[in-house]
């Protein structure tokens, strides 16, 4: 059991930079560039881990604690989300609400740390991040609730298992509405282009990069890895709640686990490529137009819940 938990952690940490690298490569392909290799994020993180951190003399303990807290919070969320198996050994500890609040905890500490150093860029990034978070969180919750209401449980492993058991019958209007809503949220949560540009550094439009501007060396490596892991987790939420087919259920043998792992890899790569296509085909939105995007997502998940109630006759 402990070996299983550690293996899931290992898979999450090992795959997250690969996904990031693949998405960068796809974006480079659409921009007719060659782009860095798929393995480049691993090299970046290894390089950063070997360097010393430069820290401002004005910061408090929060600045040092924040990367670790955010990283651990995101990893803990990873243990509550089905990745390649619906058998979550720590599933008793929390459900999708815990996952959402673990993400919120990570974000809260990153935003605090961005204010801590007292630079104007950090404060700007922190306030923007919290502005977007206040719009994203209700939509995220509602869209997963639509599926949870349908299945009758908020445990993510159970949701995934039930939906995968339904087969094609799972493709219902509310499922699709909730999927579109969650996809819009995934764009915002992973800081992709209509909301934030992950490729910018030192630009006035940046959000996530502005928050972590003060970090360097090992701390930056942890922050970057945490962001990549969060991206992987949100993609696996998309994959395993709405298209969980091929996921291993409890009591599967080793061969099934390997197959499920392969299928999971294919699924997140497809989602990543879709995300990269969306990113290259849209322009970044003005910050004050983002509430419109988020209210579209909120409305879609709301409609999904209404549709569940209608069809189920609640």
């Amino acid at each position: 059991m402990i070996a299983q938990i550690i293996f899931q952690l290992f898979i999450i940490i090992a795959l997250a930079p690969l996904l990031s690298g693949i998405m960068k490569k796809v974006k480079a392909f659409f921009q007719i560039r060659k782009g860095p290799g798929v393995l480049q994020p691993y090299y970046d993180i290894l390089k950063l881990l070997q360097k010393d951190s430069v820290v401002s003399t004005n910061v408090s303990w929060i600045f040092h604690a924040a990367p670790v807290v955010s990283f651990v919070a995101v990893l803990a969320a990873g243990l509550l989300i089905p990745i390649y198996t619906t058998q979550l050994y720590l599933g008793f500890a929390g459900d999708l609400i815990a996952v959402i609040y673990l993400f919120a905890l990570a974000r809260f500490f990153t935003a605090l740390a961005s204010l801590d150093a007292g630079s104007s860029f950090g404060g700007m990034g922190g306030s923007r991040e919290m502005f977007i978070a206040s719009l994203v969180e209700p939509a995220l919750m509602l869209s997963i609730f639509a599926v949870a209401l349908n299945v009758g449980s908020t445990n993510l492993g159970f949701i995934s298992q039930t939906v995968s058991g339904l087969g094609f019958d799972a493709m219902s209007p509310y499922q699709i509405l909730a999927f579109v809503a969650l996809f819009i949220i995934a764009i915002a949560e992973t800081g992709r282009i209509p909301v934030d540009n992950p490729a910018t550094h030192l630009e006035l439009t940046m959000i996530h990069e502005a928050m972590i501007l003060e970090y360097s060396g090992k701390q930056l490596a942890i922050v970057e890895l945490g962001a990549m892991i969060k991206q992987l987790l949100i993609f696996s939420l998309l994959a395993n709640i709405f298209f969980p087919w091929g996921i291993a259920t409890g009591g599967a043998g080793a061969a099934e686990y390997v197959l499920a792992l392969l299928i999971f890899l294919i699924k997140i790569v497809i989602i990543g490529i879709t995300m990269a296509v969306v990113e290259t085909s849209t322009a970044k939105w003005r910050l004050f137009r983002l509430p419109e995007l988020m209210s579209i997502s909120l409305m879609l998940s709301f409609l999904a819940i209404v549709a569940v109630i209608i069809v189920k006759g609640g």
Partner: protein
Amino acid sequence: MAEVVFGSKIMQLLIAFILVSTFMILGSTRLYSCVRAFGIQSFLLACVAGIVAYSTGKYDIYIVALLTLIIKSAVIPYIFIYIIREIKVKKEIELYVNISPSLIIGGTLVVISYYLIRSISIISELSSLALSASMSLVSIGLFIMISRKKALMQMLGILIMENGLFLGAISLTNGMPLLVELGIFFDVLIGVLIMGILIFRINKTFESIDTDLLKNLIG
């Protein structure tokens, strides 16, 4: 509507997408994307009519579906784009109610129509879904007519209401008699043409199609 067993899943999906396209109209600030979303909505409506025709086996509904496809998803959007190009109107739509509040109001309207339809006892869940979707389309179309300043958007609002009525009619009655449908299509087409001419006249008199200006007296 027990006959439409085939494609009841597809019907549910189509109806959900029709609602989504309505929210696309409600949520966009560009005239072109509103017209495009209206075209998509009419195309989905034609698909609904096609499925009803296939499952009931009535040939006149095929004609209705074809007419929807041609008139509502091709000719009317073309007329819109022609008007937008001819009078060189600004591409942004102006609103009395902002985008986010109008989306929330739209959602509330959907809930209200679902709630109202639930109080009527209908045999199958599919037609109750279709009927509540049709009622939300009517009310959202009305809301678009009230809350948008451009005369073009008012024209679009009334067409959304018409689409809603069409959805309700086709999913409840398995299609009205062909003569009635033909009459309605003719009315819609002529209505759009007349409204187009009216918009040209408004533009000529006020040098804008902002209906706010219609309150001003012109000697």
